[in-house]
């Protein structure tokens, strides 16, 4: 088991390298010169050259990549071109907020999905089953930025129950003042994972219930509660794997929802960085999100291995 963990962590290193290379390339291949965003259009050629040199943008790309990577490894993501503040600090705050939003949405989606999927699987063909499947399809298909706006209209504009934008004043704290800001974006973001988990859990439960060993369990006289324990333990590895990967997508994919709700997370940071051609912020944020995705993948694999005895030898 320990060797497996070490091996998996070592595998993550080349992936991280490749990811950072792609991040770097994409930012530099994209059209537009960052200098344009920093200097006024009428700046003299000397000023442009000087600024270009200051930011290291005059060196060949491979050298720039090497220098950037060298700094990143030491935890130095450089300074933002837009406001001259260290990227790392901004990134920490934003990533924390995004993680808060994504994990709340993930927990919400997972719980809803497990309940609906479980009921649908056990009572296959019933009205509850058809409603759960309908919800799942709707959840996966609805564009969540649109859903977010609908929620804002209903709960903020018409009813006035919840705030439409922001994450509350100052630093995040677990009080109603802050939590009420979290509700709408989290619910909006949870719809996709809820739909996916519903479908997954329903399928897994159906598959498990059709297996021979369920007849064995009934033949032992086990009560429904014990049967449920068996089904849950069999369904857990697949369901948790799907949810873990979804959390990864939520971390990176919340850009639109964060924009709709002006949630100050990585999505908003990226959005601003793209429009300001803020290369250090762009590179740093993309890299951190990608690394979180890789880490979650690793965690999913490890959890799955821990839960399913059949995978332990692999």
């Amino acid at each position: 088991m320990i060797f497996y963990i070490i091996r998996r962590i070592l595998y993550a290193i080349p992936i991280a390298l490749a990811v950072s290379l792609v991040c770097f390339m994409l930012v530099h291949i994209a059209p537009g010169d960052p200098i344009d965003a920093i200097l006024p259009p009428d700046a003299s050629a000397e000023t442009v050259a000087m600024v270009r040199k200051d930011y290291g943008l005059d060196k060949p790309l491979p050298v720039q990549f090497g220098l950037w990577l060298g700094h990143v490894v030491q935890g130095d993501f450089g300074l933002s071109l837009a406001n001259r503040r260290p990227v790392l600090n901004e990134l920490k705050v934003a990533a924390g907020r995004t993680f808060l939003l994504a994990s709340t949405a993930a927990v919400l989606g997972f719980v809803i999905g497990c309940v609906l999927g479980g009921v649908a699987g056990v009572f296959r063909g019933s009205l509850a089953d058809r409603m759960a499947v309908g919800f799942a399809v709707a959840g996966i298909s609805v564009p969540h930025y649109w859903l977010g706006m609908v929620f804002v209209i209903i709960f903020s504009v018409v009813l006035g129950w919840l705030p439409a934008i922001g994450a509350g004043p100052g630093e995040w704290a677990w009080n109603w003042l802050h939590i009420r800001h979290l509700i709408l974006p989290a619910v909006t973001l949870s719809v996709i994972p809820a739909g996916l988990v519903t479908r997954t859990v329903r399928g897994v439960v159906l598959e498990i219930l059709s297996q021979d060993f369920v007849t064995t369990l009934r033949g032992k006289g086990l009560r429904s509660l014990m049967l449920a324990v068996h089904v849950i333990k069999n369904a857990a590895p697949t369901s948790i794997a799907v949810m873990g990967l979804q959390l990864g997508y939520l971390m990176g994919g919340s850009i639109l929802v964060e924009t709709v709700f002006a949630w100050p997370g990585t999505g908003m940071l990226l959005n601003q960085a793209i429009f300001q051609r803020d290369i250090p912020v762009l590179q740093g944020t993309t890299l951190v999100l990608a690394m979180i995705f890789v880490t979650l993948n690793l965690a999913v694999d490890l959890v799955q291995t821990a839960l399913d005895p059949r995978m332990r030898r692999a």
Partner: protein
Amino acid sequence: MDDLLVRARQLTVKFARGQGYVHAVSGVDFDLRQREVLCILGESGSGKSVTLRALMRLNPPSKTIMSGTLSVGGHDVVAASEHRMSALRGPFVSMIFQDPMTSLDPVFTIGQQITETIKRHERIGGSAARMRALNLLELVQIPSPKRRLDAYPHELSGGLRQRAMIAIALSCRPKLLLADEPTTALDASVQIQILFLLREIQQEMGMGMIFVTHDLGVAGEIADRIAVMYAGRFIEEGPVESLMQAPLHPYARGLLGATVHEGSRGSRLVTIPGAPPDLRHLTDACAFAPRCGEAEPVCLEQLPEFRRPVPGRAARCVHVKDRSSATAETVSVGSVG
């Protein structure tokens, strides 16, 4: 009649399928006494497994319609509540399933799967249940049982898994053990070991046993009585020796002729032409008549009643002489086949 474990009269099991029904079992009568081993012999789809599952009411509840009389240990299985049935499963009647690869929960250890059964039916502590599980693994002769208690099913070979399956079935000392082709999925060399083990344990614990198989050799090895099943009905019943030596029903003779056994050395194996009937459209005729070489017009008209040429033997065939109706003629069953 106190030693009667099972009493089935006109037991019928049908499954709802689409618009109609599949008549899996259509009117089966039999008794099983304590310590007796009955073997139900038949080909795939003859209804033998369904009959066996009906005894524990393990057929899919939503689609199954059971009728007739079926009492297991004095309990009315057709009418009992699900709660009552589940209390019966384990301490009174339990089953060994065909495929040990799929019949054990893959994410629970062997020990957990045994102890949960014991804990369900008895007030017993964790360590005592574990001791019982260990003893059971010793009983079914699993080597290094202590280690195997914490093993998962995939870590055991097919033969060991089937032994574990037997241990689970025995965990609450049932009075009636049902075995659904327990050796079919195993290697030939392992089959005979499991068979001997089952017979030994059955005699040791004094259980009644119903054993379902399509393998005549297996039936001859383990049974006291054999019932041959075809298209959802028992078509012949009798003590193992006489039935194996001189089957009465043409289908039973066909089965014997199509199998390698002691009497068949030197002679060619014969197959039965045709295929079993469609159980969705069953008529009130002898179901075997369309495949039978000895069929007569009357066979296609009505279902023959059981005829009893000698005490203890019976067959549903018009060619078999019924002792009660046969007065002057001497019945020479022994020479048939």
